[in-house]
């Protein structure tokens, strides 16, 4: 039916009319690490600008099967202060932030998506190569060891 709910024209709603149903929603939602520490049950999302609190609740419950107790949203204005090489103002895009409180006593902690992994043989050999090269460069810059650390500028 409504192909792509973003940038779509919805049918007009009048009292007693049918409930709007969107069959293949194009809305995105992504989890972000909160800048300010949030309570245990609160998850912070960045959502499409056109989504409402009811939309977010239904989205999470139907598509992700996550119980939602409450949703609060706000729109973050992206600044227009930066300038490019032509001195034109470059705008950072606006985005909507949603704070979702999970139901049924669930908690959520944003995981660490970049854990330290042990390096494989390829990278290790490259690091060794790099270290030997750096040592050789430092030796060359030091100068003649027989002069006892005195720079070449001084005669004799």
């Amino acid at each position, binding site marked *: 039916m409504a*192909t*792509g709910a973003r940038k779509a*024209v919805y*049918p*007009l709603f*009048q009292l007693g009319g049918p409930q709007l149903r969107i*069959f*293949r*929603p*194009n809305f*995105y*939602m*992504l*989890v*972000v*690490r909160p800048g300010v520490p949030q309570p245990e049950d609160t*998850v912070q999302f*960045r959502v499409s600008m056109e989504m409402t609190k009811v939309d977010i609740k239904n989205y*999470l419950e139907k*598509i*992700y*099967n*996550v*119980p939602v107790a409450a949703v609060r949203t706000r729109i973050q204005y992206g600044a227009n202060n930066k300038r490019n090489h032509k001195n034109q103002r470059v705008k950072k895009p606006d985005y909507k932030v949603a704070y979702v409180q999970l139901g*049924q006593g*669930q908690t*959520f902690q944003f*995981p*660490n*998506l*970049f*854990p*330290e*992994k042990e390096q494989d043989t390829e990278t290790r050999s490259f690091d060794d190569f790099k270290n030997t090269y750096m040592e050789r460069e430092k030796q060359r810059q030091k100068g003649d060891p027989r002069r006892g650390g005195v720079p070449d500028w001084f005669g004799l």
Partner: protein
Amino acid sequence: MLLMLNLFHKNLAKVEPFHQLKFLHTTLSRKGLEEFFDDPRNWGEKNVKSGDAWNIKQLRGKSSEDLHKLWYVLLKEKNMLLTLEQESKRQLRPMPSPERLEKVEKSMKNIDLVVREREIALRLLQTGHEKPVPGEWRNDFLGRTYWYTYKEWPIPWYLNKKYKKRKFYYLPHVNHFIRLRLEKSLRRRVRRQNLEKTRQKVLERKFPHLAVKSQS
């Protein structure tokens, strides 16, 4: 189940197994929010392998139910990739294999196209119209002709003050500007054609052995 597995492996490197074990009681799993993140084994990797995007020809062979389910799979994948992108920007690290995003977007666009084709075909058979919303060609006050789609209003047009202020006709003094616009478009067309011809000539001069031999 097999059909679903075949459906998924084209775009995702890993398939999530469906929990169909009857005698296993699971507590309320946080499987919901885990779907916003990749497989934990892929966290911290530099490159994550993924298949090619879905082609329109491949999608045309799938049923509407399959396309519907695939749409949601791709949507969840897109959400996961966007989360990863934002987190990598936050942690100032490179995002592992960002081409996955483009592939997912392309697949979703292709699904949209296929579904739209099917809808148009069905609508043509049932009603005889190909467009979902009726419309007509109208002139604006600058003399340009464009396709105006009808909008839904709760009141008729003769009670709509803002609509009555819009002018769908142009006065005779605009004809001069229409003529200028036409001349400009003709000049642009001729310039484009000449550019094509000169480019073709340059190529023929550089690679004479690849010239198309005209049948004499």
